[in-house]
């Protein structure tokens, strides 16, 4: 039977609209705090990290900053500097858009170098280093290959897609789970908007779910659980 335990501390959420005012973010985090049981981490715009730090101090929710998000085609030097900056500021987690263009061009060495340099720049300072490979743009073989690369390079989580139309297929989570096992956590991300999709992702092997519509999923889950005989 579906219980709260299955959904406990499963969800990453975010308020990354570029026009998010300070008030918008404060209201959003206040609402998230009502669902501390479910939410693991919240990603915010870099200029608003101080608000997140202040509101989530002494709370069991991690603060996330994004790098090369949602477009990973930035020089690796820029990504590494930003990772160091965020680690110094005290974030718990970074979500980094991988250089998909380099990967698709067959430049695997560049991708490995990029991920390894980011990891070594912040290792020990962050709880979670999450890399986004854009699984929706990859073949099955490519998903397995990039899963192995991300694990070998020492990142701690694979966030499948950034959202914004880059959506995860259930199959993507399965391939990643079969490839990396428990060596790296899997965050299903992109297009997860309801309870049914959430549970399908968890069944396929996702450790975490990222969603920008968390409250609607939580409300749906609570209503549904109440009615299970």
């Amino acid at each position, binding site marked *: 039977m579906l219980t709260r335990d299955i959904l406990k501390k499963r969800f990453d959420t975010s308020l*990354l*609209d*570029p*026009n*998010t*005012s*300070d*008030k*918008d973010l404060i209201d959003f985090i206040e609402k998230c705090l009502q669902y501390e049981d479910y939410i693991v981490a919240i990603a915010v*715009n*870099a*200029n*608003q990290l101080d608000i997140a730090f202040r509101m989530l101090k002494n709370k069991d929710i991690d603060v996330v900053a994004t*790098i090369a*998000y*949602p*477009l*990973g*085609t*930035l*020089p690796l*030097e*820029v990504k590494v*500097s*930003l990772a160091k*900056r965020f680690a110094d500021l005290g974030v718990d987690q970074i979500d980094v*858009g991988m*250089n*998909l*263009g*380099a990967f*698709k*061009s*067959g*430049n695997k060495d560049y991708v490995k170098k990029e991920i390894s340099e980011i990891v070594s720049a912040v290792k020990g300072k962050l709880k979670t280093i999450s890399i986004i490979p*854009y699984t929706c*743009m990859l073949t099955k073989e490519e998903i397995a290959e990039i899963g192995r690369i991300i694990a070998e390079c020492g990142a701690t989580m694979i966030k499948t897609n950034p*959202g*914004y*139309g880059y959506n995860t297929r259930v199959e993507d989570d399965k391939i990643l789970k079969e490839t990396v096992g428990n060596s790296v956590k899997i965050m299903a991300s992109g297009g997860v908007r309801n309870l049914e999709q959430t549970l399908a992702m968890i069944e396929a092997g996702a450790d975490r779910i990222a969603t920008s519509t968390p409250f609607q999923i939580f409300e749906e889950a609570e209503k549904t659980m109440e009615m299970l005989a």
Partner: protein
Amino acid sequence: MVKITEKELVKYIDQTNLKVEADEKEMTQFIEEAKKYEFYGVAVMPYWVPLASKIVKGSKTKVVAAVGFPSGTMPTESKVEETKWCVENCSADLEIDVVMNLSWLRSGRYDLVRKEINEIVKAADGRIVKVIIEAPLLSKEEIVIASLLAEAAGAHFVKTSTGFKGFHGWRPTTPDDVRLIRSVIGEKMKIKAAGGIKTTAHALAIIEAGASRIGTSSGVQIVEGLRRLREWKR
């Protein structure tokens, strides 16, 4: 009324490909095509600036680097580093299209918005800087404030939108957006209209409204469309 030929129209266009999944083969073909058409610029993400520079060097086409794309909310230092990296890794003519920090704008932190743009103008070291205000996400009053801030900070263009459709509330840029911005900025300040401009008629209406440049991934269709319209028989 402006009268225009294909040869004149290409000078308005920054042909754009910011697709994260584009590989080197696709980017090479895309940049070669922009050079062949003699578009004013070819707009790419920073990682592809060295490739674009190599291909267009010595031609009429300039490299346009998309900085702070698409959210614009990363730290100022990071946008400055992106800008400097593009300057150092581009031996062709280069322009910088940078996204304004709208989160600051909407929180009333105009001082920070202006200071950031000014630092990017300095890092661009004399090159043209266009500031993207993402007009689709702003009220009319905010469009006016954003445009005036870009001008006050020493940028050369106000650019209407990133064209990134994922943002809540995104819509194509309209001639009215261009007219509104034109009505508040000085004569020397120019406008680049971008975002959802895909047809010849839309491009011509945008130019008529006062834009000096158009950012589009459909430059070829727009120019070929003009040719068809000018050569239309019966």
